[in-house]
């Protein structure tokens, strides 16, 4: 068994069996093997090596672990990796097109929507999803739609500005 299972769960002496799992991440199939109890965020980070997705609270509160599952934002610390089989997963690594940033990433840069950057991958993924759902209509709606994402640097003003700016740009490009 892998280190993951042993280190995250020192009290379980019997090491459970893994099951084969194919996850589709950023448009590519990844064949891996996981214990059914492994969280999606851990599999993305530890088994697939995609460490752009962060872990903050581990309790569905902070949103740092937000990824898209079939284009909808979810907190990957509260999804089992096995639950994501057959679905399309998008992480922060999958947003840019080569060297061209996604409009939401570009807007965060342009509007200074980040300070330490820890919350940023989750903020960006949540923003992509809320814009897609038509929730970026005004400041109040953006704030409501981002309430599941916490920024310890508390730079919410510029984050909201970035989301509105990106939404405008994406609307104009339609």
């Amino acid at each position: 068994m892998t280190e993951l299972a042993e280190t995250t769960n020192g009290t379980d002496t019997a090491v459970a069996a893994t099951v084969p799992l194919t996850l589709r991440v950023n448009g590519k199939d990844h064949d891996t093997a996981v214990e059914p109890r492994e969280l999606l965020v851990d599999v993305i980070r530890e088994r697939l090596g995609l460490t752009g997705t962060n872990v903050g609270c581990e309790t569905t509160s902070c949103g740092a672990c937000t990824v898209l599952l079939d284009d909808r934002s979810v907190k990957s610390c509260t999804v089992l990796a096995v639950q994501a089989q057959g679905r399309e997963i998008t992480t922060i690594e999958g947003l840019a097109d080569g060297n061209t940033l996604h409009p939401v990433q570009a807007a965060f840069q342009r509007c200074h929507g980040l300070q330490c950057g820890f919350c940023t991958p989750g903020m960006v993924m949540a923003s992509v999803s809320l814009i897609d759902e038509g929730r970026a209509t005004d400041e109040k709606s953006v704030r409501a739609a981002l309430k599941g994402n916490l920024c310890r640097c508390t730079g919410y003003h510029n984050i909201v500005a970035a989301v509105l700016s990106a939404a405008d740009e994406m609307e104009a490009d339609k």
Partner: protein
Amino acid sequence: MTPAPFTYYRPTSVADAISLLTEHGDEAKLIAGGHSLLPIMKLRFAAPEVLIDLGGIDDLDHIRVEGDEIAIGALARHVDLELSDLLRAEAPLLAHTAGVVGDCQIRHRGTFGGSVAHGDPSADLPASLMALRGTIVVEGPGGRRSIAVDDFYTGFLETALEPDELVVELRVPRVGDAPWGYQKFRRRGIDWAIVGVAYQSEPGAGGIGLVNMGPTTLRASASEAALRSGASHDEVAALAAEGTSPVGDGAGSSEYRRHLARVLLSRALAGRSTT
């Protein structure tokens, strides 16, 4: 924060899910969105030996008109209810309530069936199901049966579901634009309700459901009776906490909760809703 080990099954039909429940009995737990179950499994408050994932069943998330009712599949997610044009037109209280659950990410995962089946008195959707006098359609080895929402909740986190049954559908009457209101009182936007009140006006289907005013989702029976007998909204609201038994905790005393129920019902009766 990884759950304890379990054996994982992913049936692709309701019938297969029922066979697995029958086979594994008490050791098994269903998982739908996992947004009530996984947090408690991560904390090791729950450690089922077998997990039966309903996520592989792909025809159980419908929202459609059936006669004078709206039928909603148990696996419809909160966001599906929130953004459904049909539900907004036919049972707007329910669509609105779905939109005040948690945050966007939680609403993208949590299911209507899971919220109803969990039996948490602080959940929002069951209160609106109660206000709408909805029914819960469950299926087991012997087929389907319908349970009125008033008969469904039997205790804290306890329901009338048999161990080998699952919730397959929720049904509410089509009430159109009849007046309604949903009030959820909380300190921060991401919190659960300290108290919540769901109000749907008559004719026929109306009612008042209470969030977090006792061990289960409750009906404000005294207020409903007053409403039917033509009492003023003030008189109706004053009875909101009759027969309830709210707990006192860090968020507020039981007397504070009773006060909230009265204030929130008066706002809901006026057609006002929190977002």
